[in-house]
C-alpha cells in the first residue's frame, strides 16, 4: 500500500481529541464496573495496536505473533512478583525488558531474510512460547494457570491514595496513562532519525540499503520497541485480571486484534490504531457477540479482508485524506 505519513497538525489534533475522549469516557458513559472492564480491555488493546503498528506502519513488517510478547510480559511480571516477591511496578518494567529479549531471539534470525519470513517465524514463536509455558510446569503451573496474581500497589499522591485492588477506575486511568506513554514513545521514535530510516525501509528495502540505511538494525530496533510496549501491556494485564493461563496470555486474540485495530484505524497514521482498537472492542462487545456467540471473531477476518482490499488507508486515513 502506498501512504504518506504526514505529521500534519490535523493528526496531532485527533490524538489530543482521542485522549480527551478517553479521559472523559467514564463520565460520559458510565462508571459501572461492567462498562469499565470493557473500557480497560479496549485500552490494553489500543496500546498493543499502537505497538504493533510501529512495525507495520513504521517499518513495513507484519507480525502475526505479538501474543508472544504479550504473554512473556504477563507471565514474567506475575512470576517475578509471586515467586521472587518483587514490587509489581518494577516487575512490569523488567517483564517488558524480557519481552525485548524475546524480540531479539526471533528478530535476529528472521530479519536476515526479506519477505514473509519474519511474519511467519513470529507466528511460530508465539506458538512455541505457549507450548513452553504449558509444559514448564514447575515454573508456570502449566495449563492450570496462575491464580491470585497481586494487584499493583496503591499509588500515593499527596493525601490521596489510588487503589488498584478495589477500584476499576484507577485501573482504567492507569491503562490510559500507559497508552499515552506508549504513544509518546512511538511519536518520538517515528520523529527521530531512526524513524526516518524506518520509513525508508517501509518504502523500499533495496533503495534504503542503497542509500546507506542499516536495514537490519532498523528493523530490529522497531521490533524491540514494539515488543517492549506489548510486554508492558501484558504485564499490566496480569495484575489487572489476577489470573493467567497459557491460553489466555498467549491467546491468538493478542496477535489478531492489534492487526484488526491498526488496519481499521489507519495503518499510515500514528494514533489511528488505538482509535481502531477502541471502536472494534465496542463493536465486538455490543454487536458482533449478539450475532454469533461462538464464532463472533469471523467478523474480524472479514473486516481485515474488506479493509485491506477496499480501504487500505483505514478509517482515519480516509478521513484525513479528504481534508
Amino acid at each position, binding site marked *: *500500500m502506498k501512504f504518506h505519513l504526514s505529521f500534519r497538525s490535523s493528526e496531532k489534533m485527533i490524538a489530543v481529541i482521542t485522549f480527551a475522549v478517553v479521559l472523559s469516557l467514564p463520565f460520559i458513559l458510565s462508571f459501572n464496573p461492567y462498562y469499565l472492564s470493557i473500557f480497560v480491555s479496549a485500552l490494553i488493546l489500543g496500546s498493543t495496536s499502537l505497538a504493533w503498528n510501529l512495525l*507495520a506502519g513504521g517499518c*513495513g*513488517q*507484519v507480525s*502475526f505473533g505479538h501474543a508472544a510478547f504479550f504473554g512473556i510480559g504477563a507471565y514474567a511480571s506475575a512470576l517475578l512478583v509471586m515467586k521472587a516477591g518483587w514490587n509489581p511496578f518494577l516487575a512490569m518494567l523488567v517483564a517488558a525488558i524480557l519481552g525485548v529479549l524475546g524480540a531479539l531471539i526471533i528478530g535476529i*534470525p*528472521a530479519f*536476515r*531474510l526479506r*519477505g*514473509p*519470513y519474519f*511474519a*511467519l*517465524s513470529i*507466528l*511460530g*514463536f508465539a*506458538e*512455541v512460547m505457549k*507450548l*513452553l509455558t*504449558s*509444559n514448564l510446569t514447575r515454573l508456570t503451573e502449566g495449563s492450570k494457570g496462575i491464580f491470585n496474581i497481586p494487584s499493583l500497589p496503591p499509588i500515593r499522591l499527596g493525601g490521596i491514595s489510588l487503589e488498584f485492588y478495589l477500584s476499576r477506575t484507577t485501573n482504567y486511568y492507569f491503562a490510559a496513562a500507559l497508552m499515552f506513554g506508549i504513544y509518546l514513545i512511538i511519536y518520538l521514535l517515528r520523529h527521530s532519525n531512526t524513524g526516518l530510516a524506518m520509513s525508508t525501509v517501509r518504502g523500499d528495502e533495496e533503495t534504503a540499503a542503497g542509500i546507506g540505511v542499516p536495514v537490519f538494525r532498523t528493523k530490529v530496533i522497531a521490533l524491540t520497541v514494539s515488543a517492549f510496549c506489548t510486554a508492558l501491556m501484558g504485564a499490566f494485564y496480569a495484575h489487572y485480571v489476577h489470573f493467567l493461563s497459557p491460553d489466555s496470555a498467549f491467546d*491468538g486474540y493478542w496477535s*489478531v486484534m492489534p*492487526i484488526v485495530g491498526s*488496519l481499521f484505524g489507519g495503518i499510515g497514521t500514528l494514533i489511528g490504531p488505538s482509535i481502531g482498537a477502541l471502536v472494534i472492542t465496542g463493536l465486538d462487545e455490543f454487536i458482533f457477540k449478539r450475532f*454469533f456467540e*461462538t*464464532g*463472533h*471473531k*469471523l467478523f*474480524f*477476518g*472479514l*473486516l*481485515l*479482508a474488506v479493509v*485491506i*482490499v477496499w480501504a*487500505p488507508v483505514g478509517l482515519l486515513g480516509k478521513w484525513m485524506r479528504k481534508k
Partner: protein
Amino acid sequence: MISTTTIIQSILSGLLEGVNYALYCLGLAFVFGIMRIINMAHGEFLVLGGYIAYWLLIKWGLNPLLSLPLAAAFAAGASFLSYRVFLQRIRTTAELNTLILTFGIGIFLSNLYLQLWSADLRNIGVHWMENPLQFGGIYISLGEIATFAVSFAGVLVLHFFLRRSKMGKAIRITAIDRDAAALAGIDVERIDLLAFSIGGLLAGLGGPLLGALSFVSPGTGIAITIKAFILTVLAGVGSIPGLIVAGMILGVGEAMTVTFITSSYRELFGFVLFLVILLVRPSGLFGKRI
C-alpha cells in the same frame, strides 16, 4: 531403556508421517513458489477438506479416501472465490497486503467452522485403517500405508504436472518471468487464478488424510500453516520433490522427540529446526530452483 525395535518403529512411523507432511504443505509451497504469495489461509482450506470428509463419513459412511475428490473440490472452490473476490484486486500491491488479506480469510474461515461445527475435534477414522501389519515386532497400520501412498502420489502428480503438461509449463514460465510469459501469449491473470485454485485443491486433499490419522478442528488450520511454512523453507522455495525429504526429516525428528524426550515437546522440534535453517542455510536444502 529404549529398545532398538522402538527406535526403528518410531523412525519408520516418522518417515511415513513425513510424506503426509509433504502433502499437507504442498499447496502452500506451490503457491509461494509460483506466485510469491504466502497463503495464510492454507491450513483452513485443508481443514475444510477434512470437515467435508467428516460429513460424508457421518451421513453416508463414506471412506475418507473416497471423499478425497469432493474435499479437494470444495477447498479449490473456496480458494478460487478468495482469489476472485479479494486477492485479485491487490495482487500487485505490497507483499504485506496479501499476507494480511489471506490471514483475514483464515480467521474468517476458522471462526465460521467454529460457529457451524463447534470446537470439537473430529476424527474421520474407519475401522480397517487401524488394523496393523506386523514385520518382526514392528507395527504399521493400514491407514498409515494408505495415506502414505496417497500423499506420495499427490506430490509426484504435481511434480509431473509442472514438468510435463502444457499448462504446468505455462505456470512455471509465468513464475520465472511474468512479462515474457505475457508476451508469449500466456494469459498470466488466468494462470494466477489457476495456480491459487490448485493450491486450495492440494490443501483440500490433505484434510481427509489428517482427519483419518488424527483429527481436524477449527484451531488445526493455523498450526498446519506454520508447519507448512517450516517445511517450505526447509525444502527450499520452489522445490516440490524436496518437500518429501524435508517432510521425512521433520517426521523422524518429531518421532524421535516423542521417543526420547516427551510428546509435549513434539512441536518444538520443527521450530528449532526452522530457526537453525534460517541461520545456517536460509535457501533451504534444495533451494533456488523453480
